[in-house]
């Protein structure tokens, strides 16, 4: 008999990306099917097909532990790596780890370059400054403290950690299916830090006070089943490798080019400039593509990470977006990273967005709503945390909370955030999600950035100037 209490509304946070196909398969098999939960979907809000009281929302995997911990969702499914990244730093988070779902198998490793010659013994005893790159800065920091590394710098990344060692970092903390997969990427595992399969989590408060046994029994049935077809679902990740070439003299200049959405237009631009990068255009991405200029080294990394890398002198030049450069400069006002040429492609607007239902036509209306306590604190979801901070200070919004996201932020409005600071090309996607733009912050395009200090001084000056001129000419002619 279904009592009132058992039909309480239950909300699930479900992963996008690499875990989606296997998670969808699991949910189908255990009878907790969600319509539209597929790779191709453009809808973020889901409804369990056969249980009207169970709803779901799709998030970036990395956002899920936070969303569940703050109580926006009762259950969540994501990799254990992201759960531990949160719990390492915030052990008091309101999360309950419920069950290893036994798919999406992999581990978080501490790895070094295959070609750097770093040994376990050196790791424990060598007195050096360790540069550690990772998408998991909290896990990396705890590891460094426990290893008693004397001097270490943690460089947080959006991705592509495998591309950094040995030139730009001694160590990387990253997820991989296996040590063999690391080897394919040119890395050697020094330590397996934690197994990181897909995991079922719940909000602590919900777990203690809500009857959620209906959902739990679906999962139990699945985990106790003899046949687990979801374990056979292949994780499809964009393939990449790394053709390492040792660089005996440090005279070459380093250029960073982007992966992801910006890859295609960048390639087109480089081709127009007469630059030929075979590994960058191939189906399997080479993180270190060759180039038809023998005094240039190229690496493919995430555009979000470039300003910081250029500031640190790891790259002389990088092709990124003005949005990411500004976000970096707002955080580090004295950074030497600077724009050298506007490249004219990849144009987007950075906008402030609210739901169409909100009676606000502009930021001033929003400020009044915050002041009068109607929207206080204002919940602001964004990938651009430092641009958002500055924008809100400039507009005298006194009480707000930033919810950092890693993409697909529009899914958060209106339930889990009030305001988005987002980029948009045409505004169509926003309109489709019943959102409206209330302010334009600035126009962003792809740009070539460099390090002010390294341009002014040093032996690379002539080569950098040549490249900057080439890029400027190409941009003007298009």
């Amino acid at each position, binding site marked *: 008999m279904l009592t009132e209490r058992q039909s309480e509304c239950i909300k699930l946070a479900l992963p996008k990306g690499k875990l989606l196909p296997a998670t969808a398969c699991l949910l189908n098999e255990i009878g907790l099917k969600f319509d539209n939960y597929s790779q191709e979907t453009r809808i973020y809000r889901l409804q369990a097909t056969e249980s009207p009281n169970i709803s779901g929302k799709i998030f970036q995997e990395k956002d899920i532990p936070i969303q569940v911990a703050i109580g926006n969702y009762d259950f969540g499914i994501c990799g254990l790596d992201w759960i531990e990244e949160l719990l390492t730093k915030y052990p008091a988070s309101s999360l309950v780890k419920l069950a290893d779902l036994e798919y999406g198998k992999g581990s978080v490793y501490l790895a070094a370059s295959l070609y750097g010659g770093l040994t376990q013994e050196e790791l424990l005893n060598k007195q050096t400054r360790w540069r550690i790159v990772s998408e998991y800065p909290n896990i990396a920091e705890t590891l460094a*403290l426990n290893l008693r590394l*004397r001097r270490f*710098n943690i460089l947080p990344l959006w991705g592509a950690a495998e591309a950094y060692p040995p030139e730009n970092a001694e160590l990387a903390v990253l997820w991989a299916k296996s040590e063999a997969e690391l080897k394919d990427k040119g890395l050697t595992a020094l330590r397996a830090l934690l197994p990181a399969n897909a995991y079922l989590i719940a909000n602590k408060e919900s777990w203690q006070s809500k009857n959620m046994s209906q959902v739990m029994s679906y999962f139990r049935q699945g985990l106790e089943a003899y046949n687990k077809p979801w374990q056979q679902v292949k994780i499809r990740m964009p393939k990449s490798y790394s053709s390492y070439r040792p660089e005996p003299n440090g005279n070459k200049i380093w250029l960073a080019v982007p992966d992801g959405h910006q890859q295609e237009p960048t390639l087109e631009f480089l081709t127009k400039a007469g630059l030929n990068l075979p590994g960058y255009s191939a189906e399997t991405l080479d993180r270190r593509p060759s180039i038809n200029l023998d005094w240039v080294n190229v690496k493919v990394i995430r555009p979000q990470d470039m300003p910081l890398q250029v500031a640190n002198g790891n790259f002389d030049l990088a092709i990124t977006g003005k949005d990411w450069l500004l976000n*970096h400069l707002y955080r580090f006002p004295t950074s030497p990273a600077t724009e050298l040429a506007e490249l004219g492609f990849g144009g987007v607007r950075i906008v402030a967005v609210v739901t169409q239902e909100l009676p606000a036509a502009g930021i001033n209306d929003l400020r009044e709503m915050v002041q009068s306590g109607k929207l206080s604190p204002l919940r602001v979801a964004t990938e651009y945390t430092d641009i958002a901070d500055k924008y809100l200070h400039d507009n005298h919004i006194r009480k707000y909370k930033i919810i950092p996201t890693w993409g697909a932020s529009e899914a958060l409005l209106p339930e889990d955030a009030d305001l988005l600071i987002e980029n948009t090309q045409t505004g169509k996607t926003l309109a489709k999600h019943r959102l409206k733009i209330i302010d334009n912050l600035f126009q962003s395009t792809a740009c070539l950035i460099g390090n002010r200090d390294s341009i002014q001084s040093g032996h690379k000056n002539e080569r950098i100037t040549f490249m900057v001129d080439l890029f400027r000419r190409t941009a003007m002619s298009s």
Partner: protein
Amino acid sequence: MENLKCKGARDMLPQDTACFRYIEDAFRRSCLAWGYQEVRTPTLEYLNLFTSAGTLTPKMLSRVYSFLDWDGWSGERVALRPDGTIPVARLYVENLIQEKTAKLFYVTNVFAFEETGKESREKWQGGVELLGSSKSIADVELILLALEILRSLGIEDFELQLSHAGLLKSLLAELELSTEENRDLLTQILDGNWQHLTQIQTNSPDVNRVLSLLLNFRGKTSGFLENLKTLPKLSPALKREIDNFAEVSSLLDATGCNYRIDVTSVRSFEYYTGLCFAFSLNKEKIVSGGRYDNLIPIIGNGDTPACGFALYIDSLIDLVQPQQQHAADKGVAITIESTTPSATRSVFQLAASLRKAGYVTELVISDSKPKWRWSVTVRDKPPTFSITDQTQNQKLDAASIDDVVSVILGDPA
């Protein structure tokens, strides 16, 4: 009302602050009288100052407030000072190392995260560091200085416990563990989990015997350590540490200082290398310190032995009763009847004269209960001053400021 104050932060109200100053004054007075000089270090330090092995334990490091500064793009983190000694050791290395010996003290806040938010995450301590001496008499001086400070605060029934980090560390070395096992065990006992040490199964019955004699018994004089020294088959390294421990405690015996030897009385002794001591009152630690001969070499490569201690002011605030700084009869409340230019002038001139004579003068802004013996009302027209003596319930008029002062001063009762 919603909470405006940060979780884990503490306001010091006037009463707390008076108590804080009372402790701080007693601490400073003693330190200055013993020839120590006061210093201050910045609240922000580079995190890596605290991350070397032999500085802070991993558990303490996991509670450090650290973040990227506005120019921290290289990933170099800065930290809110989690410890008082290490920044002073840095200050010494960078500024005073050529002076060989430095006797320094400071009053500072230190920051450490605490989950519940019930305890303060910012704590205050008075610290004393004696840099540049390896002599046992330096350890003794610090213990006696701490003793004097506590007594001057009216604290008598404290307990002094001694331990020895060098002895503990050389015992660990005798266990012949791998680097990693050794590090794990050290981490455990640094956090106060001594049972891990007793659970270790060693192959050496000699080491086991010393361990159990050390962990299970409490010594009351240096005789206890002299007894330990006579145990057969001690390694030279272990014997050296017991010798040092015995030397310090015999010097303490000579000064008539009472103590208990309890090697498990210390924790978080990561940077300590020799004698460690702690004063506690009702089980609460109010002072702890010790010898840290390796810290300055780690920070600055110089070879400087050192020792020091910290006085925990937050714990003491609840334990001491400050003497009232200003007795009520040394205070005057001044009321102005109407704010005319001449009355205003008289009020502040009178107040200045009385302050010069050593009185607290308080301008009465609104009706409040008088907390001083004297009160004076100032008028525009004669009689310009009315004096009230609250204790005698007497009223008196006066014509000039000098008259008022002599009435108040003339009656020292």
